């Protein structure tokens, strides 16, 4: 991968010289390499790295790597990229300038979004519908998640969002953007000042009384605050779902930017976390970033496999604190419902409310005949259609009401 070229021995490169100046320069160049590889490394990290290297024995490669890693990265997901960059850079510090090394990080670089969508599309949209565009936040550099490195083969299959033009989704898009998702609020254990609240706030009461020379006149009080529960969306993007998935992405984008604690995953044959990409305020930029990292648009479905992956790697990280799960799929599974029932059961038991949205429900007289659907149905709290604006609106109303009691809880109460 790296063209043959005279290499500087490690010991010489990393040995501190009289001023430490050479090492400092190398640390700075290393930080630049990490940034180019997509890691969020700022000046604070560089300063900390200099301090860290002063505290360890830098002739030991392990100590040096660990020291730099401890101060320069803050997430496990970045560890692999860091280790690769470390191995390359500290063998040959000029590597940062090599085209070959940059090519290695090309996978990450590729994912940096082009800010403007293809000009042709911009122009055609502008011609079709002359409307005012909101100013886009140009300076806000989107954080690129480097975890999901896209392999060459899958990038070829990356879907072109050109297909999703204004004509296809039309006015529905505008409607969807204005939809809000008010989930049933949960009471938290925090409180805020409220004159009519039921909790006496002694601290504020005493402070107020001092203002009046110590006379206890008013009792200050507080009330428990409420907040919506975390929301996790699992959306099927296989061939049979692609039309709906495109429209629903707009909805998911609006929801992700409207409230905190939302995680969005797409699945076909594989599961992809697109939460960070969707956080970008501009939907077009967000969708482009999504298109880049999702390998399996309009392919087959392996629902059981995708749910198993979610249960294994993500459930413990995103389902805490009483999450509501929206599962959007038609339930048509390529694998003949393999492992589906077990994983649905596990998912159902790990969240507070599991809602299945199925576009097939739009046909009256729909009967759950497919193996996949029959395997999934017993494990959902709610089963709703999602195929047009009206059904989306119904969904929102239903989500705003407290969820139905689960059968298990009903039985327990009856007993």
């Amino acid at each position: 991968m790296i063209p043959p070229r005279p290499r500087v021995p490690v010991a010489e490169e990393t040995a501190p010289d009289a001023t430490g100046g050479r090492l400092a320069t190398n640390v700075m160049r290393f930080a630049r390499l990490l940034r180019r590889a997509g890691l969020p490394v700022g000046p604070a990290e560089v300063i900390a790295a200099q301090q860290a290297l002063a505290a360890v024995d830098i002739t030991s490669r392990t100590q040096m790597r660990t020291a730099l890693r401890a101060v320069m990265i803050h997430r496990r997901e970045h560890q692999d990229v860091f280790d690769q960059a470390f191995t390359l850079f500290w063998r040959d510090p000029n590597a940062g300038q090599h085209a070959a090394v940059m090519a290695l990080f090309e996978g990450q670089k590729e994912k940096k979004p082009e800010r403007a969508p293809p000009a042709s599309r911009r122009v055609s949209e502008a011609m079709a519908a002359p409307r005012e565009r909101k100013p886009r936040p140009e300076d806000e550099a989107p954080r690129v998640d480097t975890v999901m490195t896209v392999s060459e083969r899958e990038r070829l299959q990356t879907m072109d969002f050109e297909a999703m033009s204004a004509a296809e989704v039309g006015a529905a898009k505008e409607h969807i953007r204005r939809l809000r998702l008010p989930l049933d609020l949960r009471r938290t254990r925090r409180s805020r000042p409220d004159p009519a609240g039921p909790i006496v706030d002694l601290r504020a009461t005493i402070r107020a009384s001092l203002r009046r020379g110590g006379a206890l006149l008013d009792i200050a009080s507080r009330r428990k605050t409420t907040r919506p529960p975390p929301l996790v969306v699992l959306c099927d993007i296989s061939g049979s779902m692609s039309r709906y998935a495109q429209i629903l992405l707009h909805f998911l984008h609006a929801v992700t930017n409207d409230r905190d604690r939302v995680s969005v995953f797409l699945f076909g044959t594989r599961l992809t976390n697109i939460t960070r990409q969707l956080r970008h305020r501009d939907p077009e930029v967000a969708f482009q970033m999504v298109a880049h990292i999702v390998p399996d648009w309009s392919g087959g479905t392996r629902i059981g496999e995708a749910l198993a992956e979610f249960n294994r790697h993500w459930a413990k990280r995103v389902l805490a604190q009483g999450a509501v799960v929206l599962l959007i799929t038609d339930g048509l599974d390529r694998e003949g419902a393999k492992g589906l029932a077990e994983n649905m059961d596990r998912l159902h038991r790990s969240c507070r409310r599991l809602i299945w949205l199925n576009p097939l429900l739009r046909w009256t007289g729909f009967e759950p005949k497919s193996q996949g659907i029959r395997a999934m149905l017993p494990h959902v709290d709610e089963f709703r259609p999602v195929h047009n604006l009206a059904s989306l609106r119904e969904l929102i109303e239903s989500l705003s009401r407290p969820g139905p009691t689960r059968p298990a809880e009903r039985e327990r109460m009856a007993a």
Partner: protein
Amino acid sequence: MSSLPRSVAETARLLADQGYIADLELSTTIHLALAMRRPLFLEGEPGTGKTEIAKVLSAGLDRRLVRLQCYDGLDLSAAAYEWDHARQLVAIRVAEAAGDTDRGALSRDIYTREFLQARPLLSAIDPDLPPSVLLIDELDRADEPFEAFLLELLADFQITVPEYGTIKAATAPVVVITSNRTREVHDAIRRRCLYHWVGYPDAQRERAILAVKAPGIAASLSAQVVAFVQRLRAEDLFKLPGVAETIDWVNALSYLDQHELAPGAVDDTLGVLLKYQDDIAKIRGAEAARILAEAKGDALAVARAADAA
């Protein structure tokens, strides 16, 4: 209180003296945290010895351990400080009775240190108390607003009480934050800390840990147990067994007078290792027997290598 270790080797020795077997990466990170006076942020699967590090540092550095267990809704009055309202009210009444209505004097009187009740965070940086090791355990269990409370403490080792002023540590506490990743902790916290992912140990280190944590167990049994657990961690399970489970298991087997792993005993005690019914059902029986056979091969290879050396 003993002084801080001066090198990575000294840090490793300090940990080893307290019976904690750390790899070079962990000792380096701990040494850095001590030398740079930065908090240590440890993330990793449950049962990999994250909390233990704080206890070991407290014992090794001869500092008091201040522990804050996080939970949803944890707030300032439970974590940092609380005014003693009852005594303040009494003081106000006494002042009233004495006809003293000088507002300034009264607020100076009731917002003093004696009315301030220290909770773990304040206690950890109290300049009047000896230096501490502060363990903020399972930060992912607390909610986001609580993380904001921590920022001032982690950056400057100080807490500002609006009515009183700023309380700053005389000696920077050693801060250890742990997280099981049930929720992503905010970047603002991460940036103030040194980050280390605590993974499962390799077989050699796990055997060394067993030798320290479960003394009196035959080396052959612990070699088999470690080989079995290491194999088990390669399986597709919902919750993989941690080191804590390995220690429990070897102790359980020893209570049952098992000197060697046998299929029956493995099936009977699987609940010590695996904590989900699905996982147990998947492994019990044929699967356990297969892993056991492979593990025995591993253990035998280790024993042969040890003999040869």
